[in-house]
């Protein structure tokens, strides 16, 4: 599994089972709780809500304004009650990037489970000190004239990027845009691109 999954403790499964059985016995872990976690995240791992919110913001200027000013109210339109989110907008002159250098804070309710790379030292160490070099390695060249704003999630506030709308997207509907909006673009390590026109 490469560097992202180094040296898993051979006893880890036994350690998990031991604690799990004690927490079941003590009434702390509900029977079926583990299955519910699996079902929830295997069915709903992608940036489902995040992508829908961004597509709405790109197609509805009033919604974009609401999303930037009052994210809680904007998310409520998608039946999500999430009080701790801030949305930062990338433009021609600004590129935003989200990280948590101290642990791995991530806006789970809008983006789902974080990818492993987001939680590993390489990303957490470099995003604040050499974001341009890091993004270049990850396949995104940010022009020198475009300011990079890094958001280090050091408290309970969470950050999501409102990416730049790709040229040509103004003609597309919300429903067409949603599947083009990737998790990586909402973290800020990629931009949204349109499929090549045949």
């Amino acid at each position, binding site marked *: *599994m*490469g*560097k*992202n*999954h*180094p040296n*898993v*403790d051979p*006893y*880890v*499964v*036994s*350690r998990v*089972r031991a*604690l799990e*059985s*004690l*927490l*079941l*016995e*003590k*009434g*702390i*872990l*509900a*029977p079926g709780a*583990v299955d519910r*976690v*699996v079902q929830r*995240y295997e069915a709903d791992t992608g940036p489902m809500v995040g992508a829908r919110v961004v597509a709405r913001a790109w197609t509805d200027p009033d919604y974009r304004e609401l999303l930037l000013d009052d994210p809680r109210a904007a998310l409520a339109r998608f039946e999500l009650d999430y*009080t*701790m989110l*801030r949305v930062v907008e990338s433009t021609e002159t600004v590129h935003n990037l989200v990280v948590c*250098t*101290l*642990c791995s804070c991530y806006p789970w309710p809008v983006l789902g489970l974080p*990818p*492993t*790379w987001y939680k*590993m*030292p*390489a990303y*957490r160490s*470099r995003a*604040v*000190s*050499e*974001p*341009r*070099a*890091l993004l270049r390695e*990850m396949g995104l060249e940010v022009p*020198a004239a475009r*300011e990079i704003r*890094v958001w*280090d999630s*050091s*408290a*309970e*506030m969470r950050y999501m990027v409102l990416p730049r709308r790709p040229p040509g997207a103004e003609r597309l509907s919300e429903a067409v845009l949603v599947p083009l909006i990737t998790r990586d673009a909402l973290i800020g390590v990629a931009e949204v691109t349109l499929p090549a026109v045949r």
Partner: protein
Amino acid sequence: MDGVHDLGGMQGFGPVEREENEPAFHAAWEAAVLAMMRAAGSRGLFNIDEFRHAIERMAPADYLRATYYEKWLDGVTRLLVEKGVVGAEELAARLAFFVTKPDAPPRAALAGEPAPRWPFNPGWLRDVVRETEATPRFAPGEMVVTREMHPHGHTRLPRYARGKRGIIHRCHGIHVFPDTNAHGQGEQPQPLYSVRFDARELWGESAEPNQLVHIDLWESYLRPGR
């Protein structure tokens, strides 16, 4: 604490490795760890700041070697034993059982029916904003300097941003203070700010051009700047 978890600006970890079509969980036990962390936290057995600090207290080499959910397993286990929710002996006995029977379901080690369920607080992770009389000392646009401090306990002022000049970007309201809440010293809520730093202030001549870093910092981390 100046631990290995405080990674901002460290070097030598190499390139970011992305995994194509990454599964939600790489093994079933990972989901069990997630479920246990949430169960214990939401039943009030620890708060999120205690949990983060428990992970920070892993031995540095273990921290760097561990996967994400191994860190969580270590943190949950450490806290529940420290708080006496789980006894060290009963845990050792249960571990001995499952070392010999790693494929047995967790219920296999139970003598009888589980105890009644503990009360549940679904808001435990995000309920950190407090309505108090506190008035924020700083306004957006004001210059501040972060404290140069090296506490042995938990803090959310990253090492790379200590003793640095920044500008208040916005106030997020009055938030529970992790530095005390992680140590059983109460919530001591205080204003939380988004503070903007120029990369040159943080990284000096090594800074990349045209870069800012925003960090969310509690008021007591900050002094007036000019």
